[in-house]
């Protein structure tokens, strides 16, 4: 069987309604002397092609334009952040949250946000220009790109970033809210415009240590508990499957030595799949290791390997046929101007597929990305 090709999706969806909410928020923001606002546009243009496909049906190619819009308002203590992504592939309200800062180092947020138990997601969100490679690690993929772990949570989150006496820093983030559901072949986040929908609980946690307060270098621990309700009637593969209780425990590191940088994460997943008449337990490890070498101020050479352990026979991952089980990738990024870059990537990729043997193919990508203003 071939993994279903991505369809155009619109999440939260009624984009005009969502946009109205966003614009109403924009207009209603009192522009006091103490307040500041920021509007950032992250456009990108991607081309993608497969080659050396194991089977001709796997062949795929596309050209995709994307615009991610970020608006933030910052008052004396109140903060608002909205992020909306349009592309030729989808349209989705990514984040929509209000926050209260009751100390310099402590923020409480309410709304829709990205899961705190993910490193890459918490670092780059949809700011394509800020991440060096074109692709995200498969462990960190979004729900609608066959990501195996919930990315979007709606609820409360607390973020603390505390400086220690020796100028190092400890930070933590904890969140509780509504987890995505599982429908058809992917996780589906909570829709704030459909509050009656039946979603389970998501509790996520991230602990971070930085050797210097202002340094981007960090190591950390992540963990999450997600109760993923299943829409059994949405696919024959989900028949009699009622719920998936997912536990994740892992760690990450982002470290730099002169011109070298290493980003890595390893996460253990335990999925308790609750069928009407029995439970199926499934556990495995997913990981990625990415290196970057700054050749000079403008060029960065990079590579990444996405790998798993004991994941090949996972009954949970078989429900996600588009999941990238393995990817070994090399690439080059050229910063052609202060806020514009060109990136090329080539990879040997294995997609989960619907059988035990993966769909193997090679792929190349080319991307222009930027940020304005």
């Amino acid at each position: 069987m071939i993994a279903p090709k991505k369809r155009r999706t619109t999440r939260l969806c009624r984009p005009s309604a969502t946009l109205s909410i966003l614009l109403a928020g924009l207009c209603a923001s009192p522009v006091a002397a103490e307040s500041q606002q920021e509007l950032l546009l992250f456009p990108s243009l991607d081309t993608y092609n497969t080659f050396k496909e194991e089977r001709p049906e796997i062949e795929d190619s596309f050209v995709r334009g994307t615009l991610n819009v970020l608006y933030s308002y910052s008052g004396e203590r109140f903060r608002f952040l909205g992020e909306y992504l349009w592309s030729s592939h989808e349209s989705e309200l990514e984040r929509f949250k209000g926050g209260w800062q009751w100390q310099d180092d402590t923020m409480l947020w309410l709304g829709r946000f990205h899961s705190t138990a993910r490193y890459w997601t918490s670092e780059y969100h949809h700011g394509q220009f800020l991440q060096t490679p074109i692709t995200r690690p498969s462990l960190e993929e979004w729900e609608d790109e066959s990501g195996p772990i919930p990315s979007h949570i709606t609820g409360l989150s607390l973020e603390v970033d505390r400086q220690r006496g020796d100028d190092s820093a400890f930070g933590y983030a904890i969140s509780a809210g509504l987890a995505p559901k599982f429908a058809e072949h992917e996780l589906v986040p909570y829709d704030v415009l459909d509050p009656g929908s039946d979603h389970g609980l998501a509790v996520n946690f991230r602990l971070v240590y930085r050797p210097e307060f202002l340094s981007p270098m960090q190591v950390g621990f992540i963990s999450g508990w997600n109760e993923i309700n299943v829409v059994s009637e949405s696919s024959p593969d989900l028949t009699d499957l009622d719920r998936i209780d997912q536990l994740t425990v892992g760690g990450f590191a982002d470290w730099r030595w002169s011109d070298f940088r290493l980003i890595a994460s390893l996460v253990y997943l335990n999925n308790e799949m609750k069928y009407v008449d029995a439970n199926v337990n499934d556990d495995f490890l997913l990981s990625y290791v990415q290196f970057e070498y700054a050749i000079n101020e403008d060029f960065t050479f990079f590579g990444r390997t996405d790998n798993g352990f004991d994941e090949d026979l996972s009954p949970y991952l078989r429900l996600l046929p588009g999941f990238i089980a393995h990817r070994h990738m090399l690439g080059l990024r050229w910063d052609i101007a202060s806020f514009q870059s060109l990136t090329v990537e080539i990879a040997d990729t294995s997609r989960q597929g619907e059988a035990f043997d993966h769909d193997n193919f090679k792929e190349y990508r080319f991307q222009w990305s930027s940020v304005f203003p």
Partner: protein
Amino acid sequence: MRCRSATVVFLAIAWLLPQPAEAERAVVLITSDSCPVTDISALDIRKAYVSVAVSVDGRTIRPFRMDGDELLNRIFYQSIVAMSQKSYERRALSMALKYGTPRPPVFDDIDSAVDAVRRLECSVLYLWKEDAESLDGVRIIKLLWQGD
């Protein structure tokens, strides 16, 4: 002829001697007269300019930036935030993306920048010392850089 030679020698000596204005050049941090903050650490200044929330004596510090003076820009990156321009820009963007903290407003001309400092209590701005000394309604709270 003797008079012309003496003038040339005088000009040459004057050119070789260090210019008092250059030797005394300094960059300072200013805030409004109404702000009760009297001192701020170098680390707190760095934090404020990379969009980390900073309060001193219970007052939120709001950083403003100047643009248009190449030397002043260089001093900002090298001595105030201690990172390359590229690193600083990426860092400030990253903070805006992650936490919704807007980047410090940038001003092209000194008049509008100082006007903004006067209007917003405990906002801070870096300037050449000789410019700062002639301004009303603001005061110097920190020496940030001193020329050789």
